[in-house]
């Protein structure tokens, strides 16, 4: 053993030990570094306009893309739609995920807990795109829902290619993420605290409001942030369930890069999306405190 340690000391002297934590950070730093380079490149592209005759980007810098992105009503509609969707989806998802997670964590029945967990993970194995197609099959004009409705004599309903169907798809997609982020936060709340609240005179609702909810805040903020950013930047659901009529920002960016080939405008939209997302995350953290993400020293 001593010989092994001696050999280790030669290869890796003790004074290097202090460097170990930083060394472990290296891959992350590298990754973020690459991202920053990419971002700088996109920033550069966003300042050049597309020459529609040559399909080349201009050599000189201009803010024309930003002016277009911020003034054209199409982009404003798309941005407002994505933003609104992300807020609605976050609120509804948290509302649905919380009782699910709570039940999963607190149920005394092991069988029910397993069932809830399996029901949660199953959709994970089915990617977002496949799931969206699944909804096409279910909700389409000749889909299962309309088939069933026709049996009772209801004329086919247009269930797809509208805003609610996109929201619906997104909520269904986000639910497992939210539950998975909430469950550990709820597990961390000792059941005894709720019993204590009851014995101190709180009925179920007030114990929930005054004890469970405040203590679940880190989980709620974390889950909320994940759902918020994932929705804001989502591509597949609006593309498939919206059928082109319900584009989000990511769809608009895709169009610029791969349809009109206006990389300048695409880069601009991408940067604006990053800015909007960062602003939103910053706002949430400001309102609810970074400490809620378990970053503060809390017990």
């Amino acid at each position, binding site marked *: 053993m001593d010989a092994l340690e001696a050999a280790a000391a030669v290869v890796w002297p003790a004074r290097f030990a202090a460097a170990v934590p930083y060394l472990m950070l290296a891959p992350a730093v590298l990754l973020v570094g690459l991202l920053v380079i990419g971002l700088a490149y996109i920033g550069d592209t966003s300042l050049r306009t597309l020459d529609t005759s040559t399909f080349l980007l201009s050599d000189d810098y201009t803010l024309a893309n930003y002016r277009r992105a911020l003034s054209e009503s199409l982009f404003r509609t798309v941005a407002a739609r994505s933003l609104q969707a992300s807020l609605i989806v976050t609120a509804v998802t948290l509302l649905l995920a919380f009782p699910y997670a709570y039940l999963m964590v607190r149920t005394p029945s092991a069988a029910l807990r397993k069932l809830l967990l399996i029901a949660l993970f199953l959709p994970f194995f089915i990617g977002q795109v496949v799931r969206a197609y699944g909804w096409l099959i279910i909700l389409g004009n000749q889909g299962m829902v309309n088939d069933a409705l026709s049996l009772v004599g209801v004329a086919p309903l247009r269930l797809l290619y509208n805003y609610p169907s996109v929201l619906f798809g997104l909520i269904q997609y986000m639910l497992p993420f939210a539950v998975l982020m909430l469950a550990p936060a709820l597990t961390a709340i*000792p059941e*005894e*605290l709720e*019993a*204590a*609240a*009851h*014995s*101190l*005179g*709180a*009925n179920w609702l*007030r*114990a929930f409001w*005054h*004890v469970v909810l*405040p*203590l679940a805040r880190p989980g709620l903020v974390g889950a909320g942030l994940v759902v918020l950013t994932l929705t804001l930047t989502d591509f597949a659901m609006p593309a498939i369930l919206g059928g082109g009529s319900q584009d989000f920002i990511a769809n608009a960016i895709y169009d610029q890069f791969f349809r009109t080939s206006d990389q300048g405008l695409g880069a601009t939209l991408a940067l604006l999306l990053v800015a909007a997302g960062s602003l939103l995350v910053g706002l949430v953290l400001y309102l609810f405190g970074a400490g809620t993400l378990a970053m503060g020293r*809390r*017990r």
Partner: protein
Amino acid sequence: MERMKPAFRQPQAAEDRQAAVSVRGVSMVYDGVHAVRDASFDLAQGKFLTILGPSGSGKTTLLRLIAGFLEPTSGEIFINGRAVSAVPPHRRSIGMVFQKLALFPHMTAAQNVAFPLKMRRRDARTIPERVERYLELVRLGGLGGRRVHELSGGQQQRVAIARALVFEPDLLLLDEPLAALDRKLREEMQLEFRRIQRQLGVTTINVTHDQREALVVSDEVIVMEAGMIEQNASPLDTYRAPATSFVANFLGVTNRLSGVVTSLDGDRIGLLAGDHLMVGAAAGPGGSLQIGARASAAIRAEQIRISPDLFALSGLETVLSGTVSDVIFEGDRVVYEILTVLPETGPLRVFDHDVGSRRQYRAGDAVHLGWNARDLFVYKADPEPAATKPDRGD
């Protein structure tokens, strides 16, 4: 084995009125596990009861039944004469201090103490004054603004007590809240509990597996084992007159002997252990011993006299000889382990009584042991040798 039968099973109005808590024939079965079996007891207003028992004996279960977190499988619990099985915990007016305290970490000490008042919709203007008064009662005046994690373990205990008492509950329940503390702090808090309980006169049920705590703080002690109440008596009687061999072995440092009953003369029992004929006192339910039947006996370490000289033990009804096998110095006392010829018995543990003599025995010394007949408790033999080792408190 004969268990203590509850004195009465039927609720009687007169007794209900005076008993703060009345537990009647309560059983609790978790799927398959019989955690509490047919428990019955009454506790008078203002008394301090301690439920003592080894781990898994059903203490917490009994307490949670009284608090209303569990519903008994059978039986009924009365609080101030009222059957409470249909009353949810938040309507029971019971203050509870949990094993892990269960303070709300997102609140300050004062907010924790104010919580039950807020939940009971007391007049908001009177709350701060009342909270301060109770914080002072537990000697935490001025620390109300601290977050829970900014308080020491002992201070957190006090917050939990203040929170459980501030709304003047009918009943205070303590589920081993001191178990996590170090010995010195624990002993300090035991006396603190006693002081506060006397000052407020609140009926209290305390759960512990620390026998010292049970003896120090209580008016009454219930000893539980495997879900059954073995004895319900004053601390003094619990120690001096243990009703079952389990109680005898659970409290104090007790030596367990076994033998065959040779004579029955009122309370005096003749017992043949190996070749030794000794005399003991019948304990527990009378009439259960029969000549020729196996019996188990218990003798406390402090009741055994030890001497190198046989004549010094004259007058004691049982005398036998042995060899010192181990000497354990515990500071305030010396414990000797003595090997004897008694069958089915390990070394006898004996305290050095005669501290004045300054005599020290060493391993290998030949000694004589003796005790009085009244100190040897004789019980009907246990169905099987006890699996539970006596818990010596710490």
